[in-house]
């Protein structure tokens, strides 16, 4: 069935208002879109790593989740949801449970790229029937914008502060999506919010309904940490995709498919100048940083085109 935004939006919302995420936050948008991809008759068990999302959506006695929700610790969302999935399978086998349940874990980049990494890796390798969704906002936003292994090269954070000593983060961003592909799981995709949400909705549906482990990496901008005005969210994600900083692709059984190729690939500067965390890169004398960033983006983009058989 082809994607129809109006039909999708008729589904009942599974994530409610009243959560305490900041105004303009990208992560609840990622969450509600992924949950909307569930078939309405199916139930879900959601697990979250410690994150902005966890502390803001689940403050006793309030929960913004209409489905079952479990939080354990920062480092073990992958292990927690795989345990729940295994218990479900055991109960189902004994005929003690009839309904269809789907298992979804959410984590920020801190809980996914860094702290929850071994737990996620184990869950993917064991092949539980689950989806792990990383909402990637490229730093530890919950505790005050500390750098993570997902923070881009040169970005200004409170633990990689721009000044006379260092030009922002010294290291490059880890490519987690490709690391997940290397786990040989049946479905891995990288996406973000674009236009009518076709890309992310279709990928979320595939990830949930592909038997076995699946991984979804969603860029979810943080207006506070990235330093842009809240209303610009969709401009930022569009620029990330059109500059090829965050390419959209999916990997099905090890085969790469490019989801979107910009008509004109924009210079990386367009993406950088929209955000305060990169403002130092555009100052006179710092042109080398932009050049370096552009080089990195070009290299990754060409690699991806080759993998997708587009070049």
């Amino acid at each position: 069935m082809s994607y129809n935004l109006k039909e999708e939006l008729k589904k009942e919302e599974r994530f409610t208002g009243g959560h305490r995420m900041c105004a303009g936050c990208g992560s609840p948008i990622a969450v509600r879109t992924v949950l909307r991809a569930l078939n309405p008759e199916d139930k879900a068990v959601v697990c979250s790593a410690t994150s902005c999302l966890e502390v803001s959506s689940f403050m006793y006695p309030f929960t913004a989740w209409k489905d079952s929700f479990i939080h354990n610790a920062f480092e073990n969302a992958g292990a927690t949801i795989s345990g729940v999935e295994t218990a479900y399978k055991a109960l189902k086998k004994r005929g003690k449970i009839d309904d269809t349940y789907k298992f979804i874990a959410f984590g920020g980049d801190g809980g996914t790229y860094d702290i929850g990494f071994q737990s996620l890796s184990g869950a993917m390798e064991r092949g539980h029937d689950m989806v792990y969704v990383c909402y990637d906002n490229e730093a530890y936003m919950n505790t005050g914008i500390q750098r993570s292994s997902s923070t881009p090269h040169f970005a200004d954070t409170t633990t990689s502060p721009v000044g006379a000593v260092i030009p922002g983060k010294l290291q490059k961003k880890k490519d987690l999506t490709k690391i997940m592909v290397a786990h040989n799981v049946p479905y891995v995709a990288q996406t973000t919010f674009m236009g009518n949400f076709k890309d992310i909705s279709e990928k979320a549906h595939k990830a949930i309904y592909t038997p076995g482990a699946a991984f979804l990496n969603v860029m979810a901008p943080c207006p506070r940490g990235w330093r842009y005005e809240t209303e610009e969210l969709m401009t930022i994600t569009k620029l990330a995709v059109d500059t090829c900083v965050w390419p959209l692709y999916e990997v099905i059984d090890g085969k790469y498919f490019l989801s979107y190729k910009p008509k004109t690939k924009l210079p990386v500067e367009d993406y950088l100048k929209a955000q305060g965390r990169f403002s130092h890169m555009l100052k006179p004398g710092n042109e080398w940083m932009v050049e370096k960033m552009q080089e990195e983006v070009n290299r990754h983009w060409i690699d991806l085109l080759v993998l997708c058989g587009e070049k």
Partner: protein
Amino acid sequence: MSNLKAKDINETITWKEITLGCSVFEGGSAELVNTGDWRTIKPVIDMEKCKQCMLCVPVCPDMSIPVEEDGRRGEFNLFFCKGCGICAKVCPFDAITMIKDEK
């Protein structure tokens, strides 16, 4: 064992009445929380200009744009809306404007 609902759990109850392990026995209880009072600006929609393209609905981080049964978007739910302005920015028809929220 207590299985109190969120609406009955507040500063006036004692620890004995709190649910065991602080479990929550209902889904979506955050709907009781008014996050609209964070707002300094609020969205206003001009239904004359709105073409029901629905592009504003999925971009809302606060589920503040309800979809009616006939599939059309309804009025803003200002109980949740934090006034981020993403909806106004994505509207292709300039039907949504952000104005100062006088309370």
